[in-house]
């Protein structure tokens, strides 16, 4: 077996080891690489900044723990910005696990910013139905969510007397890891009901959303951990996303180097085969 054959049939555990090292080292020894912001993220930040005090943001937590690492930093950055700007937050979930995700984000931040439940923020919890639920909600949030996540009647929550339907919300943010999620919000809430919709999604699903971004149906987009890191930078907060950017940088570089290396081996091997003939 030649050296080329050995490289071609490289045990994948070596690749796993390289990836592991390139994740761990930058997390332990930060590189503090400079991060630039992009327009889709800047657009969300600027719009949030332009909102008057007391405006309501509807946040939909449409993800589960598997994508928590990518989407929680985005959720935290938006809620943090909203609380700093004295905006009100109403949370709901189209995914069963999303209700717990929203509680984990809202409860500590509300404590940090001294926000009162029911007055400054409300968590409506999860409801089944996906896109059908989004259509029904246009007739009034209270009809679809008569109680909040704790079982309290929404009529007993002062904020929910102010928030009746999508028109009461200055911005709808979908934190989405799949279906139902941001696509349904764009198609129904933005396009059909005319609300402003922004999205934060996993990096892998971001390219699909550019079609809605370019058509103006989507106000802005935070794609993956990078999008969240950009938002953290804009609100001057050093959260998990910014800390994770160094590791992601090195891993991307290592994967690119692996691909380059495998292509070099491939072409050299092809050349050797041709010359041998």
């Amino acid at each position, binding site marked *: 077996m030649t050296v080329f054959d050995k490289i071609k049939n*490289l045990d*994948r555990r070596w*690749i*796993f080891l*390289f*990836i*592991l090292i390139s*994740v761990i080292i930058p997390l332990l020894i930060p*590189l503090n*690489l*400079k*991060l*630039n912001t*992009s*327009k*889709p993220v800047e657009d969300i930040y600027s719009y949030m900044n332009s909102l008057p005090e007391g405006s309501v943001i509807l946040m939909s937590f449409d993800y*589960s*723990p*598997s*994508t*928590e*690492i990518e989407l929680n930093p985005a959720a935290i950055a938006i809620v943090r910005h909203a609380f700093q700007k004295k905006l009100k937050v109403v949370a709901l979930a189209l995914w*069963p696990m999303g209700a*717990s995700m929203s509680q984990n984000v809202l409860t500590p931040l509300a404590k940090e910013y001294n926000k009162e439940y029911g007055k400054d923020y409300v968590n409506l919890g999860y*409801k*089944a*139905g*996906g896109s*059908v*639920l989004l*259509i*029904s909600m246009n*007739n009034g949030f209270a009809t*679809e969510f008569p109680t909040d996540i*704790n079982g309290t009647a929404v009529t007993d929550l002062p904020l929910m007397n102010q928030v009746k339907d999508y028109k009461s919300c200055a911005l709808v943010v979908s934190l989405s890891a799949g279906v139902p999620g941001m696509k349904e919000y764009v198609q129904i809430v933005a396009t059909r009901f005319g609300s402003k919709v922004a999205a934060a999604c996993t*990096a892998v699903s971001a*390219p*699909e959303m*550019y*079609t809605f971004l*370019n058509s103006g149906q989507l106000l802005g987009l935070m794609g*993956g951990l*990078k999008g969240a890191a950009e938002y953290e930078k804009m609100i001057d907060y050093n959260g998990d996303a910014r800390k994770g*950017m*160094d590791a*992601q*940088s*090195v*891993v*991307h*570089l*290592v*994967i*690119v180097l*692996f*691909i380059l*290396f*495998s*292509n070099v081996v*491939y072409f050299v091997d092809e050349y050797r085969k041709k010359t041998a003939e």
Partner: protein
Amino acid sequence: MRREIPMAITTLTGLIMIIVFFVPRWEDWSDIFLKWFTVIAGFALVLGAGSLLLVNLNKISRKASGWGYNVVLIIGLLATAGSGIIQGIGPGTMFDFIFVYFFTPLSATMFSLLAFYIASAAFRAFKAKSLEAGLLLVTAFIVMLGRVPIGEMMWNALPFAQSIPLTEIIEKWIMGCFNTAGQRAIMLGASIGIISVSLKILLGIERSYLGGGD
């Protein structure tokens, strides 16, 4: 009648939903159906749990290959659902403990494994065997590196970087032009497919949703 009645319900409901979408006067009908749907969707969760139990119990009773995993799954399902029903799901409950210390790290671990498999698969499969594959490879390099700070740093070291910012190449050209064109083509194709399948369901031609392999 086991097939005819569900088909009649599907056709009637579908037609009503299409008609009321274009006739604002009958919008209330749509609201009634949407409410029904929300209630039925809730029951689908119960149906899903029931189906999961049946499938796994069946595998255990047959002692099928890997039946031990089915036992773990059923214990997990019953322990989680039982603790939630008995004690509630608030902070400090057993349900919360299971969710925070079992479900969350296990789910995150499963998803994180993707990074390792993607790296391994890319090493083996991502070869510039043709012009198209080469173009895809170069684009992937630009996007992969351009999306992280280290790529921006490397690009800025190039002499022409100031005249062509990397974000412009990625946001405007690759994502905004080529990617959007491709995505729209896929979406339009899929939408036409959905319309076609919906019509077939409404007309009773497509019946696979009823089960039974017909």
